[in-house]
């Protein structure tokens, strides 16, 4: 039987991840089908009720990809509940009578390079350390550069003169990134496209409204839950700043911890678990940078965020900063979100005029 690898979705990151898996294991890789309403329904049907939404999305992804013929599944670990997703997912899928191999990329809180290498060596015994390191660096660069370009896009996408220019250029860029195997070329492509992105004609007033998006990592990164939010904000001509991306989680977070504790000293003495402290830190930073508003997103019942919210609310009250909370669940009505966003937009506009 042919071995086919698959993994759950996380925004556009499926491209570098699938390239990495393909080049190291030399097996066929098919990312799970894009997330739709049906995926979420499937996931919600077989998951426990009160689990957080990312679990339901992932499970839906897995079921659909298993139906498509995949038989080796990959999942990542992480902090908080993410770390325990793997075992429960596996038990649920086995009870549904699927046949597959299941691998967890890392078992601790952070990525352990040696552990990952051993895992891939098990799948592909011919894998040399050189190819592994080469591809690892390639993938990390890919992700890092993609995140940097995304930052530029988010800043300007609300003000482009011709619609959809950013998105088409990004698609083209990812295709070029994918086509090469050399690290040097990847870097060259990055500089070329960075230049191109800056040349896209935009019509941006100097004092446009600026909003920061903070919150739980999955809802921030997965477009199906956050795409609507970012698109809607762009339509309102608002500049968006979003902190969480994969490069932040993989290697930037560890270095920032001490600095974050220092900045948030007035409110927090310890870390709050998962991304709790990070969001308190971001709130303070956004206030210092004089942003107009903050939007906080999280899945329903996310424990670290629930613990951090009272602290964030207190900070915002003291500093007179408008903040909007969104809690995602399986049933999401876009209309309801839209109404709340519009009201928020009006509030920001009025505040601007009174300044």
């Amino acid at each position: 039987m042919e071995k086919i690898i698959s993994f759950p979705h996380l925004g556009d990151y499926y491209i570098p991840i699938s390239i990495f898996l393909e080049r190291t294991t030399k097996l066929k890789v098919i990312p799970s089908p894009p997330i739709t309403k049906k995926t979420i329904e499937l996931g919600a049907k077989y998951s426990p009720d009160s689990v957080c939404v990312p679990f339901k999305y992932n499970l839906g992804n897995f079921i659909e990809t298993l139906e498509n013929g995949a038989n080796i599944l990959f999942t990542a670990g992480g902090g908080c509940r993410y770390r325990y997703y793997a075992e429960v997912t596996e038990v649920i899928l086995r009870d549904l009578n699927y046949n597959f191999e299941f691998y967890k990329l890392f078992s601790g809180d952070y990525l352990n390079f040696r552990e990952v290498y051993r895992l891939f060596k098990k799948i592909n015994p011919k894998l040399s350390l050189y190819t592994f390191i080469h591809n690892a660096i390639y993938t990390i660069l890919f992700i890092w550069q993609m995140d940097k370009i995304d930052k530029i896009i988010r800043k300007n996408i609300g003000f482009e003169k011709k619609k959809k220019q950013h998105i088409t250029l990004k698609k083209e860029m990812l295709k070029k990134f994918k086509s090469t195997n050399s690290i040097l070329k990847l870097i060259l492509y990055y500089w070329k496209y960075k230049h191109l992105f800056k040349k896209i004609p935009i019509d941006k007033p100097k004092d446009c409204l600026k909003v920061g998006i903070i919150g739980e990592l999955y809802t921030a990164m997965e477009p199906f839950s956050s795409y609507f939010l970012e698109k809607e904000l762009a339509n309102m001509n608002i500049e968006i700043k979003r902190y969480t991306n994969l490069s932040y989680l993989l290697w930037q977070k560890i270095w920032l911890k001490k600095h974050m504790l220092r900045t948030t000293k007035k409110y927090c003495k310890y870390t709050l678990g998962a991304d709790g402290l990070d969001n308190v830190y971001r709130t303070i930073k956004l206030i210092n940078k004089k942003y107009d508003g903050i939007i906080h997103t999280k899945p329903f019942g996310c424990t670290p965020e629930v613990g951090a919210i009272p602290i964030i609310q207190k900070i915002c009250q003291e500093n007179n900063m408008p903040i909007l909370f969104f809690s995602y669940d399986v049933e999401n009505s876009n209309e309801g979100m839209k109404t709340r966003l519009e009201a928020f937009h009006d509030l920001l506009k009025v505040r601007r005029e009174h300044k």
Partner: protein
Amino acid sequence: MNHKIVGIPRALLYYYDKDLWIEFIKKLGHTPKISSFSNKKHLEEGQKLANDESCLSLKLFLGHINELKDECDMILVPRLFSIKKKEQVCTNFNCLYDLVNNLFDINIINYNIDLTEKESKLMAFLKLGEILGASYIKSYKAYKYAEKISLMKRKKLEQEQAEKLSTSKIKILLAGHPYNLYDELIGKPVCKFLSENEITILYSDRIDHTKIDEECKKLSTDIHWTHSKEVMASINYYQDKVDGIILLSSFPCGPDSLSNELISHKIKECPLITLIFEDLNSEVGVITRLESFIDILKTKKEKIYGKNN
């Protein structure tokens, strides 16, 4: 040394370390003041203070602090991150100190156990003693003394539990976090109902603690919450020794949402019921479900042994 009244909220971690705290504070010459048993007022106050999506147990905890805030010189609010190597606790315990500190304007004494930052339990208690005005030597002695007493009490409970296994009555394992099992609003009505129906209750936290790691591995290899491991271990250990299992948890509990699912997938022989408690629970609904569960257990037992009696 001036004498202080130290408030201890009767919620969350109180049920794990109560003897340790009380004996330690008493030995240092201060008075521990424990809040009253949970009641509706605690819940109401907690609901006002906490975020809507916080779990019931956390809301009760805040209610308890609200009761203590005017009556004590300082209140003990512990903060845990990792109390065993490579394991963690629920993130609610991570943010407990900062949450209370931001919501209330009170004098908190706290201790912090975080093995990833090399803060052990002993270190935490030495620092606690320092805040209370005792020397390190005195705090060390007090800690050792308190540890001895709390271990003795725990051993006694474990022994009692082991003796219960030999009865011929219907035995039910009540599994869940101790702060739910022994809480006046959550676990107590269940216990009361079960003992009225002449059922022997075994508690998940009274399992022989030397067996926890070994028993837990048989059910789940990956679980990293120290407190959930205890529940898992007890379920695996008692599953063929009892007639039924009741899983108690509060809504929306992070660790339980996953671990309960795993348990219900893996335990197939032993009858199992999951009771989830939230703010608006009516006791009657719970009792009805329990009645039918007990009826099932009784008929099952009669089918096996009935003809001989």
